[in-house]
């Protein structure tokens, strides 16, 4: 038996205008048109979206969790990048 699968596609759905597309899941399809049609049937049967993006999974480059330290730890000790680091007089209610 052949073990060939149709390519895998990642599905992103915009739930309403003004919001970003979010990752909803993945599915197999022969081409982009079929991926869109299947995504519509699988992920938007209850008005979940107004727009669908499909991207073949192989085109996504992901960071390696093993590199999380060098990638993300440097941000942890930089509290001065957050507004709460700065002292304001109580009189200034909003800034």
């Amino acid at each position: 038996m052949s073990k060939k699968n149709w390519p895998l596609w990642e599905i992103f759905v915009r739930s309403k205008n003004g919001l970003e597309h979010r990752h909803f899941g993945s599915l197999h399809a022969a081409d982009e048109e079929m991926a869109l049609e299947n995504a519509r049937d699988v992920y938007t049967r209850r008005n979940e979206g107004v727009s669908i993006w499909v991207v073949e999974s192989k085109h996504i480059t992901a960071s390696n969790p093993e590199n999380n330290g060098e990638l993300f730890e440097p941000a942890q000790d930089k509290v001065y990048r957050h507004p709460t680091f700065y002292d304001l007089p109580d009189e200034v209610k909003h800034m």
Partner: protein
Amino acid sequence: MRIPKLLVCFREGNWITRAPSLRRKVALLAKVQDEAGHGLYLYSACETLGVSREELYEQLHTGKAKYSSIFNYPTVTWADMGAIGWLVDGAAIINQVPLCNTSYGPYAGAMIRVCKEESFHQRQGYEIMIKLANGTAEQKEMAQDALNRWWWPSLMMLGPTDAESIHTEQSMKWKLKRKSNDDLRQQFIDQTVPQADLIGLTIPNLI
């Protein structure tokens, strides 16, 4: 993972053309379509472990992949569509809600989506039972008969007793499984018995 949701499509799909009204027909169509979607979510989650779709089908066909025995019982009357939605989907929800917090991310993601869609399945089933239970004597008898046949298989869906379950200990340790079979079963019973009382049906072991 409970992949053979796809089997629902065959068992309940058979009843679509025999649904007694358009309301029942569109509901059952939508449910069966959901179940096909749930099968897809779970297969996709499984594929993240490196197995191909084709291998998974092969495992199901050869019997290597296990599926719940609930799928082996025949559906002999329309009331079975009610009892299955109410009891079988009800038990499935009890089982799946804690799995939304399972430690394996792709499985948890699939379960969150499944749970969102599943509550309509149970409601449409219970609505069928309500109608039959309030119908003619013959219809009520059909509803009671369906409850009698599906009650024990539904309880069995929650798995063997904790003392006899061979996977529970490890699955709980890995936080794949969050509640034990007996806890889930008790929760299902506590939830379902009052629902049966409300529509004048009797849980078989209380007869």
